[in-house]
């Protein structure tokens, strides 16, 4: 029984980058970014290709991050330079990314039979390999939270927040909204691609379709986390979002435990999000609609 919960915890942490990336684009920049669906699979696929060829794990993760950032940058440039609205810019990139990811992978599914070599050196916390995973993922996620919290506390980060909050005010204070949006979307997708790679690593395979529904999944984590913790500061919000990712996974684990067919997983996710949105609307005014600005 316990291993199911630990497994869900691990998965929630693996998906934390997705939640953080969606938080950054949707909440900080107020940019509804569907690119995450594409960059999640891109990260997972790229990492799987490299890992299958015995490339060290950190390097594979780094490549995934860079590719994700590039994907986000493309969307950012399409949006800021060509004036294409956020949803269409994201869909354009994601559609293109599907082919790119498939070409990169060479086939639609890559299994990863070997566990990452570094994992064996970590203490298992008495929980078997899931314990080692837990420790590794916790370290990664804590690092991400700290780095993001620091970034968003600098003048640069406050400028990013101003861009999402009031672009007119940002420009009137000499902040380039184009540069900021492009950078922010790139950073968000870098986080998402990292999550894709970690998820592929954890579940032992990458699939071109693994990104479908990522935005909704990330959004679900953000909303669940925010309604649970009601963050008042940025660091609190980052922690809340990661917590939301874990809780979201736990809820799915419970559903599966109760006999839900894995085929219905996406439907259940969508319904769960709908419920969370409904609850969010009741409990936090303006929360539900703020995700669909413009």
């Amino acid at each position, binding site marked *: 029984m316990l291993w199911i919960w630990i497994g869900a915890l691990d998965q929630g942490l693996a998906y934390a980058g997705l939640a953080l990336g969606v938080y950054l684009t949707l909440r900080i920049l107020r940019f509804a970014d569907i690119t995450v669906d594409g960059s999640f699979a891109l990260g997972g696929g790229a990492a799987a290709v490299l890992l299958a060829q015995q490339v060290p794990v950190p390097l594979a993760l780094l490549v995934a991050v860079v590719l994700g950032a590039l994907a986000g940058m493309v969307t950012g440039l399409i949006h800021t330079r060509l004036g294409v609205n956020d949803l269409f810019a994201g869909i354009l990139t994601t559609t293109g990314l599907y082919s790119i990811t498939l070409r990169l992978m060479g086939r639609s599914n890559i299994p990863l039979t070997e566990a990452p070599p570094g994992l064996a050196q970590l203490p298992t916390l008495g929980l078997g390999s899931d314990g080692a995973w837990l420790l590794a993922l916790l370290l990664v996620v804590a690092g991400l939270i700290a780095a993001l919290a620091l*970034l968003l506390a600098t003048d640069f980060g*406050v400028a990013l927040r101003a861009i999402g909050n009031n672009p007119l005010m940002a420009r*009137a204070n000499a902040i*380039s909204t184009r540069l900021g949006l492009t950078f922010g979307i790139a950073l968000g997708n870098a986080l998402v691609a990292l999550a894709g790679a970690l998820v592929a690593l954890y579940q032992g395979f990458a699939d071109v379709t693994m990104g479908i529904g990522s935005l909704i999944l990330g959004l679900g984590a953000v909303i669940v986390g925010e309604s649970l913790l009601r963050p008042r500061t940025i660091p609190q919000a980052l922690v809340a979002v990661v917590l939301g990712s874990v809780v979201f996974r736990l809820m799915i684990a419970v559903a599966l435990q109760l006999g839900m067919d894995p085929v219905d997983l996406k439907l259940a996710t969508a319904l769960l999000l709908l419920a969370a949105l409904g609850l969010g609307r009741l409990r936090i005014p303006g929360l539900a609609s703020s995700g669909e600005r413009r």
Partner: protein
Amino acid sequence: MSLEIRGLQWGHPEPGGGWRQLFEGFNLTCATGEFVVLIGSNGSGKSTLLNLIAGTLPALAGSVCLEGRELIGLSDHRRASRIARVMQNPLDGTAPDLTMAENLRLAECRRRPGLRWSGLLGLHPDARDRRRYQELLEELDLPFRDRLDTPVGQLSGGQRQTISLVMASLGEPRLLLLDEHTAALDPRAEAKVMALTDRLVRRLQTTALMVTHSLEQALHHGDRLVMLHDGALIGDWSAQERRQFSPDDLRAFYGNVRVDERQERRG
């Protein structure tokens, strides 16, 4: 000369088709440190003029020089490193989810345009900055000076407008553009903000262009009064000359402009 506007052209399509040329070779020069008050009827082009100077609207032709540097061709956020604005709508000037301290900090960084990669190193807001903001707000005697950590969105519209003015005074602007910045304020607050405006303009030694509909302000603030009608200057008075006017005289100027007089002034 600090601000030199020469041959400025701007127009817009009419709703029923056709084209309305609002500014047709508009000229205006302001001396360094001069505080110019701009009046004119609704739709005469006051906000548009400020937008053209700030670059939030693109001019069709002409030249806008600030301290000898051409602004036309620069995007609005680049111009903002030397031009500070208080916009007509109180909600436009501040970021509501950011705290007062964060808003002030952004305004202070205005000298470094772009996205301030240099800002990646500076953690925010550092204790020394906070003390400085605290002193500034205390010195200005603002009623919300102890709310540095309150999200600006939780303040009233008038309070936000006042913060916009304080923000505009930070970051060493070379030109201050104020667009009816007291329109949303109660009479007491208006008097305070106008006193603050006078004080800031004097202290900064910056050129300022202030739009207002208040005849009281038009007669008692600034070094020079200009009147705009349909995109053309129809009056330009020094503080000395302005003394002859009563509020009723000024009132009579609004919408009471003879066409021949206008063309004469334009030419």
